């Protein structure tokens, strides 16, 4: 008798706690608005780290060169079998969809494999996707420093000629004023890039 009374005394607060917890689990407010950009957005945005590399067009490649344009920058290498061709094909498709606005967009492809990617090879590789794309190469140190400043990782896998580079695959969106505004993870459609580029161009 005593034990069942104790049990009941304990059960009441337990049931009440469970009730309160269930109520707390779902807040009764309305759903929040979805973010404007499809890409991941930095808030507040910082100035995109500047760099000085060798462009596939033969000229020095700096970010300042493209001030006034929206820059879409990705990291990869020309021997990449899967991720890089898909990324560049997606960006080419997005640029085509933008029509006249495409003139205000610059795609930069920075190599993570300077051993094999010289300026000439990158130029030919870029042309296969979109002649306006610019490849960037440079010394191992310069490229490493640049990757660090953007939080990009790249690691060589294997030792023979057939090595691959394991690298992060996001695309960086830099606005007309040179601010690093957003980062689009790999796998988004050309339509998502068109959506975000239009928003950045409109600002």
């Amino acid at each position, binding site marked *: 008798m005593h034990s069942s009374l104790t049990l009941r005394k304990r059960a009441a607060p337990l049931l009440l706690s469970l009730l309160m917890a*269930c109520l707390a689990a779902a*807040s*009764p407010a*309305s759903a929040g608005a*979805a973010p404007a950009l*499809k890409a991941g957005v*930095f808030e507040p945005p910082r100035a995109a780290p500047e760099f000085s590399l060798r462009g596939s067009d033969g000229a020095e490649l700096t970010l300042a060169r493209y001030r006034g344009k929206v820059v879409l920058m990705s990291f990869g290498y020309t021997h990449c079998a899967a991720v890089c061709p898909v990324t560049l094909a997606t960006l080419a498709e997005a640029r085509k969809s933008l029509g006249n606005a495409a003139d205000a967009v610059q795609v930069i492809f920075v190599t993570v494999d300077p051993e094999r990617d010289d300026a000439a090879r990158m130029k030919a590789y870029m042309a296969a996707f979109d002649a306006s794309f610019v490849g960037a190469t440079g010394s191992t140190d310069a490229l490493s420093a640049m990757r660090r400043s953007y939080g990009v990782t790249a690691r060589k896998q294997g030792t023979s000629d057939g090595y691959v580079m394991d690298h992060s695959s996001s695309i960086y969106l830099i606005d007309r004023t040179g601010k690093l505004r957003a*980062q689009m993870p790999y796998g988004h459609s050309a339509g998502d890039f068109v959506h975000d580029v239009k928003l950045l161009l409109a600002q």
Partner: protein
Amino acid sequence: MTQTLHPTPPAAGLGARNRARSPRRARRAAVVLLLVLLLLGTLAWAALAPIERSSRDELFEIPHGTWARRMAGDKVEILPSTIRLTLGINDVLLLRNADEVPQAFGPALIMPGQSFRLPFATASTYSFACSAHASGQLAVIVEPGPERGWDTLRWRLRDLADAMRRHLLAAP
């Protein structure tokens, strides 16, 4: 004078005590019944009511002083190696760096005082390089929104369990 004792028969005494206790028992039973009904009502509501939140953000923050603690040899885990999100409910990963140094947090390098807000629109498992983890990988599992009923109840209970786990981990 001879005093005659008329002891109350034992059975009759028990009956009187029972009669005295019965209103108390009834009250207790009513309270328990009410609580059970409330619980069932809540569970039914939790299973059937649409899940609505004030924000779709799922926030993870690097607290101030994390870098200093790491430098001192403290193994600080801020970001779980697997994050579960649900489309339409909490489908935006919000990473905030409240520390004094830049932090590679999930897929992004985030400056002090800066946040990175990453929305997801497709249910899938996303794998990101993340130097904050020993494995170097962060998995974000994005699931479709739950159906009404058992799915919704299960989602709410799991959300509650996650919240409690996070609260316990955050406790000093």
